[in-house]
């Protein structure tokens, strides 16, 4: 009997050793920082305190949160964050949907197009942000220059460095947040492949019989699209929105590399960075990270409570 127990035990122990390295890495580099952040956000820590033992003093306070919430720009940052996140998510999903519908079906060069359409997503973020900055540059950028040369513009538009752009269409004046819009457009460009892949997979999973049946029932192509394709995509679209919202809300690299958070593009993740390395206030930075967490939690709660129910 004891030998048998030992055999069970042996399997368990083997599994333990096989999982320990993974567990250790995840514990140290994911779970620990999350908990550590909880500690830091309640402490007055500056960038200068990283050498001494001040990090471990038991002097907890809520000052960091007061600092964050009393910042006159806090509301703007939150609003920018939400605009950027919702705009970027929706745009990338819409573009992905369009691309998937275009590529769906059998024709020559389809595999090539699929590959091409994914490239913005797999290219390194530094390369594509610098390229777009260059393309959108007011002096040397090809876009402005082409528009100027063709007489479309009279003076160049600083897409990434100007906060507001006044437009007049049919006598009505508009004011659009220029840099933020550019960043959202970039977000759409870079992340539509993600939505594209999932929507394409779903589209190809719709059984052909459904379309045949609808054709026999007399549905025209557009009717088939609205009555068969769209309902079949509802689940994947709402799931995509959840994922894109979460990831876009957390996104730091793209905005940082495009604008450094200037010209009205400062989102919460940029704020986390700015507190730490602009004001050297680690505590406030951690507190902002907690706020970011909180907003995400609220979103996820709202999504599952009142949003579209997702299957599986």
């Amino acid at each position, binding site marked *: *009997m004891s*030998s*048998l127990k*030992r*055999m*069970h035990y042996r399997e368990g122990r083997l599994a333990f050793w096989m999982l320990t390295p993974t567990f250790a890495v995840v514990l140290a580099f994911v779970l620990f920082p999350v908990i550590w952040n909880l500690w830091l956000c309640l402490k007055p820590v500056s960038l200068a305190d990283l050498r001494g033992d001040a990090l471990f003093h038991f002097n907890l306070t809520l000052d960091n949160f007061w600092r964050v919430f009393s910042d006159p720009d806090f509301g703007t940052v939150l609003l920018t964050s939400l605009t950027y996140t919702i705009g970027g998510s929706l745009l990338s999903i819409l573009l992905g949907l369009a691309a998937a519908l275009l590529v769906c079906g059998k024709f020559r060069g389809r595999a090539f197009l699929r590959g091409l359409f994914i490239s913005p997503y797999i290219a390194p973020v530094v390369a594509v942000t610098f390229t777009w900055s260059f393309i959108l540059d007011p002096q040397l950028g090809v876009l402005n220059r082409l528009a100027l040369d063709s007489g479309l513009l009279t003076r160049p538009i600083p897409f990434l460095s100007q906060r507001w752009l006044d437009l007049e269409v049919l006598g009505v004046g508009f004011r659009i947040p220029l840099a933020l819009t550019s960043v959202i457009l970039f977000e759409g460009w870079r992340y539509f492949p993600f939505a594209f892949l999932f929507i394409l997979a779903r589209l190809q999973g719709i059984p052909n019989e459904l379309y045949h049946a609808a054709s026999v029932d007399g549905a025209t192509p557009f009717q088939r699209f609205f009555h068969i394709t769209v309902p079949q995509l509802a689940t994947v679209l709402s799931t995509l929105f959840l994922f894109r919202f979460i990831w876009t809300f957390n996104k730091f690299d793209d905005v940082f590399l495009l604008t450094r958070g200037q010209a009205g593009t400062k989102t919460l993740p940029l704020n986390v960075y700015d507190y730490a390395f602009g004001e050297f206030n680690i505590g406030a930075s951690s507190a902002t990270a907690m706020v970011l967490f909180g907003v995400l939690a609220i979103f996820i709660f709202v999504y599952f409570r009142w949003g579209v129910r997702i299957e599986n």
Partner: protein
Amino acid sequence: MASLTLKGIGKRFGRVTALSGVDLHVKDGEFCVLLGPSGCGKSTLLNVIAGLESQDEGSVRLDGHSIDRLTPRDRDMAMVFQSYALYPHMTVAKNLGFGLRMRGVPKATIRKKVLTTAGLLGIDDLLNRKPRELSGGQRQRVAMGRALVRRPKLFLLDEPLSNLDARLRANVRLELKQLHKKIETTIVYVTHDQVEAMTLGERVVVMRDGQVRQTGRPETIYSFPVDTFVATFIGSPEMNLYKGVIFKERKRSVFQGRGFFLELGNPRIDRMEGEVEIGVRAEDVKIGKENSTSPSVEVEMISDVGSEKYIHARLGQEHLTLRVPKDASFRTGEIIYITIDSARLHIFEKGRRLVTTNVEEV
């Protein structure tokens, strides 16, 4: 070559009891078949013997030595799987030689043994192919070969023929029997097919719900099933089985079923009375002449299987199947009279056989 002894094997998966109190002794060189419906625990038992699962209770002995602590590698057994489980990334030759390679056998020896085995099974010309290039029958042979090549102490076969089509299965069954004669190895063979069990096994172990119901030679199990489960599970067509009571009438025992009476003109049954189940195999029902004691049945359907015919008839409110020669001619609706030799009756009380007829080794 070795003898295998199982003592009180028990195994649970969570709350489900897969095996309980399984005792079994397989003699050296014996062909033992574990037979039972799916989910009866026979494959789990095989895995326990192999060391792929560890039992919760009991012990496995090989030649009298406990092997409970040994890993599958050290038990020196070979197994043929239902799905064959050939390694898809290796050629047939590599598949055959893998077990030897893992045990550090020199390359030249491996090659020799692989060739011998391939010759034995007639798969010499397939050695350089990959499993996906083989037909079902060829794969089955390779799976057999992989077990054979090592000449292990014990062969474990887990439904090895169930993925073959019917004709091939019959052929392979025969070959398997001859092969066993030739190599004289102890074999434990799992199947749910009673024909396989009866034709192959020198000893058949009928299992149900994780327990051994009966162990014995095929003919013993066929003729003296210990309970109604074994009685109906073994034999085709299924044994006729009727619930009813035995009572005495003028010193003779009579069985009353639903809507019919049977006279049990056999002194050995005389002592019995009360609620029983009574079973009779199709071939033990004979057609007789009209007389007062033989029950009459009405022919409902006749199925002709070529070599003989089965008559499905109505006996009172029950059904009765009987076997007649192929040239016998009956019509549906016809009334026929039957006689049943009381010595051939199986009588069960609360599902268990009443030990009345010549007691067999169990």
